[in-house]
C-alpha cells in the first residue's frame, strides 16, 4: 500500500438552490490511503476556510453507512465505484494515485440541489407518510410471540427493511424513479403478518405519492439495484407491480 497519494477533485459548486453551478478543481497531495473520501473533503474544507473561501457543502452524519445522509455522484456513479458501499465508506485506498474524481450532486427533479453536493430528499418522507407503516397506537400491541414469523420470512423482510433512504436508486435511474425505495418499504411490511391489514391500500398510496412527488416510473434498467448501498434486489419492483393489481 502506498504511503500517500494525490487526487484531483472536480467538484460541483453551487452556492444555493437558485444560483447557477459550475465545476471547480482542487488538487490534494500527500493524502493517507486510510482517509475516507469524506475526510479528504474535510481536509479540503479546512484549507478553504483558512483561506476565507466557502467550504464544499455535502450531506453526511454517521459516516458508517447507516444513516443515509450522504450521497453524491463519484465519476458519474451514485456513491462511487464500490458495490454495496455508501460514499462515506469509500476510502482513498480504493482509488489510484493521481486520479481525478468528479463529484456532483444527485440529479433528479424530485431532489432539488441545496448547495454544492447536497440535495433535498424530503420527498422520500412524504412518500412514506402516505402509508409506509403499520397503523398501530402505543398500548394496542398483542404479545410479540402471538404472531409466528418464520426465520427466513423475517430475514427476507429485514433485507428489504434495510433501505437507508439515501436516494442512490433515484440518482442512478434514467427516469429518476423511486421504485426501488417504494418497493423496499412495501416488501418489508408486505412480507410480515403485521403489514397485511393495510397491504393493498399501502401499495396504491405509496405509488401514487411517488408520482405526485415528481419521480418517474420504472423501465427495468436495474441501475438502482447496482447503486443500492444495501444491495436491495430490484426483483421487488416486479413484486410491487403485482401488488398494485391484487
Amino acid at each position, binding site marked *: 500500500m502506498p504511503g500517500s497519494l494525490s487526487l484531483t477533485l472536480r467538484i460541483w459548486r453551487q452556492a444555493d438552490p437558485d444560483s447557477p453551478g459550475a465545476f471547480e478543481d482542487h488538487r490534494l497531495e500527500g493524502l493517507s490511503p486510510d482517509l475516507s473520501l469524506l475526510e479528504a473533503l474535510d481536509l479540503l474544507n479546512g484549507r478553504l476556510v*483558512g483561506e476565507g473561501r466557502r467550504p464544499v457543502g455535502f450531506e453526511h452524519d454517521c459516516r458508517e453507512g447507516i444513516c443515509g445522509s450522504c450521497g453524491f455522484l463519484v465519476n458519474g456513479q451514485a456513491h462511487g465505484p464500490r458495490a454495496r458501499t455508501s460514499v462515506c465508506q469509500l476510502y482513498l485506498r480504493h482509488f489510484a494515485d493521481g486520479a481525478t474524481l468528479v463529484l456532483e450532486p444527485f440529479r433528479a427533479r424530485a431532489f432539488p440541489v441545496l448547495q454544492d453536493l447536497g440535495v433535498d430528499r424530503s420527498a422520500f418522507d412524504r412518500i412514506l407518510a402516505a402509508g409506509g407503516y403499520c397503523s398501530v397506537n402505543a398500548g394496542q400491541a398483542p404479545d410479540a410471540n402471538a404472531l409466528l414469523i418464520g426465520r427466513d420470512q423475517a430475514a427476507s423482510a429485514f433485507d428489504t427493511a434495510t433501505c437507508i433512504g439515501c436516494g442512490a436508486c433515484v440518482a442512478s435511474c434514467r427516469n429518476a424513479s423511486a421504485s426501488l425505495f417504494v418497493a423496499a418499504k412495501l416488501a*418489508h411490511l408486505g412480507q410480515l403478518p403485521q403489514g397485511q391489514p393495510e397491504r393493498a391500500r399501502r401499495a396504491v398510496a405509496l405509488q401514487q405519492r411517488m408520482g405526485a412527488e415528481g419521480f418517474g416510473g420504472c423501465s427495468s434498467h436495474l441501475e438502482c439495484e447496482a447503486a443500492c448501498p444495501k444491495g436491495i434486489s430490484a426483483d421487488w419492483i416486479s413484486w410491487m407491480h403485482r401488488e398494485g393489481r391484487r
Partner: protein
Amino acid sequence: MSGASARLDPHLPGGPVATAWQRCRDGLPLVAPGNRRRFTILVVGSGLAGASAAATLAEQGYRVRLVTYHDSPRRAHSVAAQGGINAARNDANDGDSIERLFRDTVKGGDFRAREAGCHRLAELSLAIIDHCVAQGVPFAREYGGTLANRSFGGTQVSRTFYARGQTGQQLLYGATGALLRQVEAGRVELLTRRDMLELIVVDGVARGVVVRDQRTGALQTFTAHAVLLASGGYSNVYHLSTNALRSNATAIWRAHLQGALFANPCFTQIHPTCIPPGDAFQSKLTLMSESLRNDGRVWLPARVDDDRPPERIPEHERDYFLERRYPSFGNMVPRDVASRRARELCLEGRGVGPRGRSGGQGVYLDLAEAIAREGRGAIVARYGNLLEMYERITGDDPLTTPLRIYPAPHYTMGGLWVDYRLMSTIPGLFVLGEANFSEHGANRLGASALMQGLADGTFIAPATVPAWLASQPLPPVADDHPACRAAMAAVAERISALRAVGGSRPVDDFHRALGQLMIDACGISRTGPRLGRALVELAELRAAFAAELALPDHGTAIDPELEKALRVEDLFGLAELMLRDALAREESCGAHFREEHRTDDGEALRDDARFCHIAAWEHREGAEPVRHQEPLAFTSVTPARRDYR
C-alpha cells in the same frame, strides 16, 4: 460542595419499588380526550425517544411539533445502534425476570442510579418489544417463528432481541413510521433542518424554543405548552467518538444555562469494541457491536514486542486476558471493565496494530474458534454487515484474521437532571433518552439504551407530560412575547459575535484539540492532577477559540461551518463541567475511574459513604457552578462491589 437541595426533589413514589410505577400512574391527573388538541407539545429530536414521544402523544390527541436538525427523522443517531434491545421476557427460559433485569441494571450502573427508575425500565421492557413487533420491526426469529435472542455484556442470561447488527435502525424506522403516520394525519408538524439554539422560559416555565433554519438561515420561535428535549448524548465532546458527526449537546447545554441542572456529566462510556484510530485527520470512530464478544475471544500476545502476525502466534503464547481475569463472565464483562483492561495492557506496550508512541493501539477480537465451531455461514449470518463494515474501513478480512479493536467514546450516562416524571428543574421542560441522566448510573449495560429511549418516549412521557398539562394554568404565549424576543436577540447576538472573531483557524481544529484534551484527561482513566491541569488548558483553548476562529460569511443561508461553530462553543462549556464533576467525584464508580481510588487488583473502588448520590450542577452566570446532591437509597438491591470474576 452543598448538601441535598430542596430543588432536587425526585418525586419518587414511596413504598415498594416493584409497584411504584403503577401507583405513580394511578395518581397522575388526566386530560380528557376532547381537550387534548388544545395543547401543543414541542419535541426536540427525532431519535427513538423523540420520535416515539411525538408519535405517542399525537396518537393520544395532542398537537405536536417536532424539531430536528436532520433532513429526515430517519437519520437520527439511534439508527446506528447495532446490537440489540433488552427485555425481561425470559424467552430463553434461563432464569430471567423483571427483578433480575432490574438488579443487573442497578449493579451494572455501579449503584449510582435510582432503584425506582431502574425497576420501571425493566417492567416496561416487555411492552416495548410487543409494540415494536406490532409496528413491523423485523426482529430475528427462530425456525419455529418465535423471537430469537442473544446475550450481551454484564449479564448471564439471553435477553437481547435483535435485527441482525442493525437493531437501532429497525427500531428507529418503526418509530419514524409511527411519527410520519401522525404527520400525515395532521397532528404532528415536522420541522426538519432546524437547530434548536435557545430555550424560551416564561415566568420560570419552559414554553418554547428558538431555532435556526439551516436552509434559509432565519431564526424562528416556536412556542408550546411543554417542551421535550430528546436530543441525544454528548460523546462528541471527545471529537473522535462513535457518534454521528453532527450529534451535539447544544439543546441540553442551552437548557442548562437557562437553569436546568446537569447531572453526573463525568459519567461517559468508552465502548471497548471499536475500530482503532488511524490517521490524524480521521473524523470518527466506528463501533463494532458488543454482540461480537458473544463469539469473539479477546486476546493479546503474551509477551511485549511480539510483532508476529496474529495467525503465527501459537495458542500458548496468547493472553486471553478477559477470560483469565474474569472466568465467570469472560469476554462478556461490562464495557467499563473491558475498556480499562484493554487500555492498561496497551499502555504496557502490549497493544497490537500500527505502533504509535506507546506500542499498538488495539487488541484482537478473534472469531476463529466460533467459525471452527459453527461454520463460516453461521457467523456471517449473525454479523454480516459488521464484518463488511470492518473490511471496508480497515482493508482486513475478519473471517481470516482477527479484528483489531480499541475503546472509543460511545455513550453518555450523564445528562440533564430529571425527576421520576422526566421533568428537569425547569418546570415544563422534560428530557428523554440519552439527553437525560437516566437509569444507567455510572455505566450503561449493552442493549439498554434503545430500551430506555423507547421507555421514555412510548410509555413514561406520554403518562407524565399530560399530567403536567392537566395541573397547570399555562396561559398562551405569543410568538412576540418579550421572552421570545429576548431569546431570539440572544441567539442573533451569539452568531454575530462568532462572525466577528475574524481569525483564520477553522472550527474543526478547535474541536480536534478539545477532543484530545478530553480523552486524555477525562477518558477511560482520570487523576486529580490531570483534571486540574485540563481545566487550565481548556480555558486557554477557549480563549484561542474566541480570538482565532475563522467563520467567514459568504452570504449563503446554508452554512455548515456556522452550525459547527455554535455546537463546538457549547461543547467547551460542557467539557468544563465534565472536568469539574470528575474532579469533585473522588471515588471510582462504573465508567468514572479515578486512579487514586482503586482496589489492590486494579478494580474500581467506590466510596459509598461520601458519594452515594447523584451530582447535579447548577449554572451561575459569571460564577463557578454549584454542585447539588440527590442522595441515593437502596432498599431492594444492596450495594456491593461489582465482581465479574
